[in-house]
């Protein structure tokens, strides 16, 4: 036992010494030549794919900005810390690590849970925060925080409106992740809007983080309730499982989803014929034919082993690009303090005249409330690719 203690005592003193040195070196660590963008997101654990997508896109965007001459000659640099999508201390640790690395502007965090944990910190420190993908309404309650992605309630409302206006279905089933803030956020507004529009939700089915592979009970409930449309406000991995399991349960409703479903077509080794006819409202589609999207997808694929970027990556890329635009306009330099930058950017982004054409929307504008206004595109998967949803498609799907 003595040895255990000795080892522990040695380690603790070593660790503390290291941390103190890290603290002392704090001021020197900051690179004074560049403007430092910070981001935190999950690089390990269940949600790692979202964090990695954002990290890659930020890297790409920073490189693009720098290649194009930087911010009036000053280069951008970025730091990325792992927050494991935690909702408490790990998110704050990651944020503090970013601060120690000289972060001046934050493009983050990636997940809603972590974002909620740090918004009060960025408010206190007055750091400008533009989150690519944390979509809950609460994320933008402070005046220094803005979103690139849609707010959850908008997606839920938008989907219900779209389904009602186009008379896609009369009986609707919803399968959502009740343990996830994103999914349950969309579901809650979808439900109230659907009721207001007279849509009939015949089955409300949910799953949790701990049981996200078996959907047989949910599918048979939807099937038995006779739902002709299944609304999936969830991420694409679970959606792919639901599609597979619906097929083996002999159930073929129309599927309708939100931006989380983007990525269905790029799942490695997935039988994409299963997602024929899936409709989704999404601001970004990797298969879109416009030049900007194609360029981005190509660059991303070249840089990261042929991976297809998802909407997380697109939102993050847009986020950095928006920041770069604003920084150029405001003449931000590397020696400015985070707080000064925040005050300038806050005003600049919500300026009525500012709008940005990016991958996830044209004419994106921000209000003072922090939410972005952009139009989701309704797309349908046809012949293994996205195409704009037309009246014919709707007629075909309702005729089934």
């Amino acid at each position, binding site marked *: *036992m003595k040895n255990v203690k000795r080892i*522990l005592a040695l380690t603790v003193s070593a660790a503390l010494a290291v941390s103190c040195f890290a603290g002392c070196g704090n001021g020197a660590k900051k690179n004074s030549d560049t403007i430092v963008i910070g981001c935190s997101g999950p690089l390990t654990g269940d949600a790692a794919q979202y964090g990695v997508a954002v990290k890659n896109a930020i890297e790409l965007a920073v490189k693009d900005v720098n290649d194009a001459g930087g911010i009036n000659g000053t280069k951008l640099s970025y730091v990325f810390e792992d927050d494991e999508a935690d909702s408490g201390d790990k998110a704050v640790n990651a944020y503090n690590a970013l601060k120690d690395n000289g972060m001046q502007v934050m493009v983050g965090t990636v997940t809603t849970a972590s974002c909620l944990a740090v918004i009060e910190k960025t408010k206190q420190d007055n750091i400008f925060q533009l989150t690519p993908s944390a979509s809950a309404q609460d994320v933008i309650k402070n005046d220094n925080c803005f979103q690139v992605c849609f707010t959850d309630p908008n997606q839920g409302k938008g989907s219900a409106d779209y389904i009602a206006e186009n008379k896609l279905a009369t009986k609707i089933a919803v399968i959502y992740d009740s343990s996830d803030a994103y999914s*349950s956020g969309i579901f809650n507004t979808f439900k109230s809007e659907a009721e207001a529009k007279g849509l009939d939700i015949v089955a409300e089915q949910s799953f949790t983080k701990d049981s996200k592979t078996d959907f047989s009970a949910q599918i048979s409930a939807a099937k038995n309730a006779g739902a002709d449309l299944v609304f999936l406000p969830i991420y694409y991995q679970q959606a792919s499982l639901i599609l597979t399991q619906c097929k083996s349960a002999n159930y073929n409703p129309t599927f309708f989803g939100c931006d989380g479903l983007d990525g269905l077509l790029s799942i490695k080794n997935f039988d994409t014929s299963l997602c024929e006819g899936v409709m989704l409202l999404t601001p970004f589609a990797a298969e879109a034919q416009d030049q900007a999207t194609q360029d981005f997808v190509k660059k991303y694929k070249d840089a990261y082993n042929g991976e297809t970027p998802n909407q997380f990556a697109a939102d993050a890329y847009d986020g950095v690009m928006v920041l770069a635009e604003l920084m150029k306009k405001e003449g931000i330099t590397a020696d400015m303090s985070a707080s000064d930058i925040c005050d300038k950017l806050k005003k600049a982004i919500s300026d009525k005249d500012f709008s940005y054409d990016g991958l996830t929307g044209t004419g994106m504008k921000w209000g003072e409330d922090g939410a972005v206004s952009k139009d989701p595109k309704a797309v349908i998967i046809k012949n293994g690719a996205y195409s704009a949803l037309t009246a014919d498609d709707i007629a075909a799907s309702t005729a089934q």
Partner: protein
Amino acid sequence: MKKEGASAKTKFFKPQTRKSFITYAMVIVAFVVMQILSSGGYISSMLTGLLVPLCVYSILAVSLNLTVGILGELSLGQAGFMCVGAYTSAIFSIVTSETIENVWIRFPLAILIGGIIAAVFGILIGIPVLRLKGDYLAIVTLAFGEIIKNVFAALYLGYDSKGVHVSLKSLSNLNLEPDGKLILNGPQGISGTPNDSTFIIGAVMLLITLIIAYNFVYSRTGRAVMAIRDNVIAAESVGLNITKYKLVTFALTAFLAGCAGALYSHNFYTLQASKFDYNLSILILVFVVLGGIGSIRGSVIAAIVLVLLPEMLRSINSYRMLIYSIVLIVMMIITSNEKTKTFISANTAKFKALFKREKVKEAE
């Protein structure tokens, strides 16, 4: 030389008093040093941000050590008790944040409420659970922790002019009036908890926890609990009420975990139940085992080292959790193998008894 000094001191202090006072002194010195460093701006924001969580994890480890080390029962439900304490205290603080404005009254009350409700849960869970033994007890406590987490994650709670509304299904089932106040938002948890936790409060709580733990261990009750751990039948035969002592220990563990939960929830703006899963319980168990089962000071040190370790490894981002896992395995093999050299016994049960007797000797 050292030994002489030690025996000279024992004339004035009992060895256990000396031992506990060294631990208190370590905490106080660490607190003062950190306080001076942080007021001078010498420590990184990372470390500053870690100060309260370090206190929280230390308290959790010490309290779990009472069940695992002193009572000798493996509990994997620590995160569940922490969750109860965190949620109830946060709800209390949010509801009363306008009526009780003085933080120095409100926050201690919140901590106490968190602790007491967690202790009530501990007793309720303990009555059926403590009949079980060994790994069965472990799995049942794990199950309880998961149940608590799942229920809190599905819970919607709010109040308006008509009273309190509760739902386990969805926000719209809550039927809250538009002007009502939503407190628990299902998986999105609680937001708007006042940030009352400070390093001073954390350090004071850690100190109080240590005082409670040491006094418990050296009290009549503590000795009875250790007697039960070492030999239930012998303890029973001298007339000890097994259930009572087990329950007291279990409730005390739950109480302290609840207090730690309150400290934790008031350190962050938001709180989500998904944080309190079995991985957290296991993490705390790791602190206890690596710190030395039954060693209260060891628990504190191990908690601090193992919370700092992954943070210190941040510069090697994608490898840090890998290194953490290797460190865990290697440390376990090193520390446990040396024990095996000391206690050569083929029989695990015998070995356990031997090991624990050794511990008691050392504790006394």
